[in-house]
């Protein structure tokens, strides 16, 4: 394999791994801010214990997000130095702004949240929780500014320097920052992160209920998670719709690949499920589709025209169609599944059997990874769908790599990263299960007899002893 392929694999690996952690921490930070606000307003002890528990889950996730994030920031320079030279005038500013406006804020107040809750008053502690949440959100904004500029570049001109090397130069900071896709993508990403956090807490709380370890804390946690997950899942469809329209307007080839539209036609069907298309044409077995659905959904007119991949006669400029189609369809499918789960949850809440319906609780536990997988698929759609460009329309991915770095170098680093990240992932799972096994503090005066619980719990519950 050549250096381009290896660098792409390494980038895909490091970014896919990294994004799991910010997705969880952005979601958890939102929940912590809500719970801290309730603790601060009501002064009820149960919110205090829930907040401390959430903080522990946050801490083990945060640290892995931080270290895998440093890898991302350095990798533009190590593996994509030509790209870095080309976009640096625009791309560096949001990264620096993220450090100054977001990371400092987040990291400083995480110190208070994790170590200082006994050193500060109730109000400062609440403020610290809210500021951590604000920091994670601002951080998402600036990172998405950088990535959105690669999707929909704006506020720049192309200049040629003394050595004859062309590069993008900023002409208008606000246009570059609020480029055509940033707001839709920010909305969709943040909503996704809240869903990730809410499903995370919902699954853990459901697990406690199933293991007969439910308490005043888990009852509140479950309800809070269901509310956020329900609203978040709904927002995913609103924001997803807005973002798809934005892609259609700004990256029409990506849109055509996502929907599997090859020929520009009137009254195009909406493909729901089936085998992916190939690079040259639709799948041999046509997917299950709603006739005229795509035209209707996109233009509110069932007979309207949809531009297909054929709008670009040069097929070398088409994105990998099968991968784009598949990641997009799987993401939407998972979104629908999660929405159904939440509708069922809302129904059970109304019937007052939220914490007694064993099937729903089991699904909630199993659903913990679903939004994370959907987020990964969404990013895959966005990034694969932009290919062969690294910056849409301006620079090819194959032209962005570092000239001085050999395939051997990248091979070595790729292997090392693979090993280290596998280890990090296991450590994360291990630390999470440990904190979950230990569980939230019981209410004052409540004696927890874990041994007795094991007897009462369903088979294979012995693991909860570890939490002692």
């Amino acid at each position, binding site marked *: 394999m050549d250096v381009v392929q290896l660098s792409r694999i390494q980038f895909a690996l490091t970014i896919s791994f990294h994004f799991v952690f910010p997705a969880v921490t952005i979601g958890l930070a939102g929940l912590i801010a809500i719970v801290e606000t309730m603790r601060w307003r009501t002064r009820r002890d149960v919110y205090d214990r829930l907040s401390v528990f959430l903080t522990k889950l946050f801490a083990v996730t945060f640290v892995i997000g*931080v270290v895998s994030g440093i890898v991302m*920031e350095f990798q533009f*320079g190590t593996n994509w130095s030509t790209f870095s030279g080309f976009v640096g005038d625009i791309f560096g500013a949001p990264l620096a702004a993220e450090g100054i406006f977001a990371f400092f804020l987040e990291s400083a107040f995480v110190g208070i949240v994790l170590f200082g809750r006994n050193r500060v008053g109730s109000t400062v502690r609440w403020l610290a929780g809210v500021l951590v949440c604000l920091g994670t959100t601002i951080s998402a904004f600036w990172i998405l500014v950088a990535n959105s500029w690669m999707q929909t570049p704006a506020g720049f001109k192309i200049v040629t320097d003394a050595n004859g090397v062309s590069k993008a130069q900023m002409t208008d900071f606000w246009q570059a920052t609020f480029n055509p896709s940033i707001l839709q993508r920010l909305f969709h990403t943040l909503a996704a992160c809240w869903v990730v956090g809410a499903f995370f807490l919902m699954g853990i709380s459901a697990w406690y209920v199933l293991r007969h370890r439910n308490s005043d804390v888990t009852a509140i946690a479950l309800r809070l998670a269901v509310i956020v997950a329900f609203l978040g899942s709904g927002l995913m469809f609103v924001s997803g719709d807005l973002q798809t329209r934005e892609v259609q307007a700004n990256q029409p080839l990506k849109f055509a690949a996502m929907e599997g539209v090859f020929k520009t036609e009137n009254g195009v069907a909406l493909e729901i499920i089936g085998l992916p298309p190939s690079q040259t044409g639709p799948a041999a077995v046509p997917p299950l589709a709603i006739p005229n659905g795509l035209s209707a959904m996109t233009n509110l007119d069932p007979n309207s025209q949809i531009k297909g991949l054929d709008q670009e006669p040069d097929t070398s400029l088409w994105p990998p169609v099968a991968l784009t189609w598949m990641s997009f369809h799987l993401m939407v499918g998972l979104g629908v599944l999660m929405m159904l789960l939440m509708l069922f949850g809302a129904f059970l809440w109304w019937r007052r059997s939220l914490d007694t319906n064993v099937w729903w609780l089991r699904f909630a536990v199993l659903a913990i990874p679903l939004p994370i997988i959907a987020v990964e698929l969404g990013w895959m759609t966005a990034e694969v769908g932009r290919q062969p460009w690294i910056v849409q329309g301006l620079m090819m991915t194959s032209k962005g790599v570092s000239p001085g770095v050999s395939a051997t170098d990248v091979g070595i680093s790729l292997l090392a990263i693979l090993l280290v990240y596998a280890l990090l992932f296991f450590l994360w799972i291990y630390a999470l299960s440990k904190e979950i096994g230990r569980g939230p503090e019981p209410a004052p005066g409540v004696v927890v007899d874990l041994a007795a619980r094991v007897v009462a719990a369903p088979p294979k519950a012995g693991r909860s002893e570890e939490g002692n």
Partner: protein
Amino acid sequence: MPSLPTVWFLLLGLLLVGYAVLDGFDLGAGIVHLLVARNDAERRSVLNAIGPVWDGNEVWLITGGGALFAAFPLVYATVFSGFYLAVMLLLGALILRAVSIEFRSKETNRLWRLWWDAGFALGSALAALLFGVALGNIVRGLPLDDGGVYRGGLAGLLNPFSIVMGVLTLGLAAQQGSSWLVLKTEGALRTRAQRAGVASTVVVIAAWLGATGIAWFDSNRVFDNFARNPLAWVGPVGAAVALAGMLYAYRRRQEFLAFVLSSVAIVGLAATAGATLYPNLVPAVDATRSLTVDNAHSSDTTLTVMLVIALVGMPIVLAYTAFIYWKFKGKVQLDEAGY
């Protein structure tokens, strides 16, 4: 009034000095961890002495990296891709120490804790060493080819001057970490930390003299600014005075003053490195290929935007960072919130 790129040369220097002073002490705490903290309670004290702040300290590096990318994209691209495997090693070291800090106290098993204690020490020492080796190679000048690319690989980075520079930054971080631990701990741990601090200072002085000596025979360019501009002497003189003052402060048991003087010594040595470089950011062996403040900077629009971001953002950052340090002032107490 200095030009906009020169202002950014100085601001980048400030960001990296902020990193060296702050993450310097938590890297240093890791370097001396196994030496000064002998039992479990002492090791937990070391970890909790940096616990609430080490992560924030590392943000200075992230922000410095972002600012370098924005202000001097060619420098960012040339150095990070040129030092490819060294950067990967550095990232590995930073991951190792972060994970070690976070996971050490998750189990009470002795071997588990020893493993992560060693990881914390090794990761911290390797990171501190690599920063110096990288800086050494930059100060010395890189053999950039006609496309401005460094192709020397990892082996090309290992030359006597750069290795001595690596020892210098290793010693400097150890000194800074020791003086932080003197400030934050008590009893036998504090006594050993002070001893480690003094020993580190001896290493720093020896490495500094060694690096100066090698540079004298190696390359005269390094001394150009010192011959040209008396202002360049502020760095080395300040560092020397601060190191002497720090040793005196230890004798007088002025813990806080010793830490401040250790930090001043870092600032002084960083200013010395800056003075050897300016107006270069990455001097090349063939001087026409050097990346300088004049040929490597971003557009005025970007530099102005970045200046506004820094002027608005950094005072706020400094204010709440000071608040956090003030909230955690005093000797470490082991309690249930912490490692």
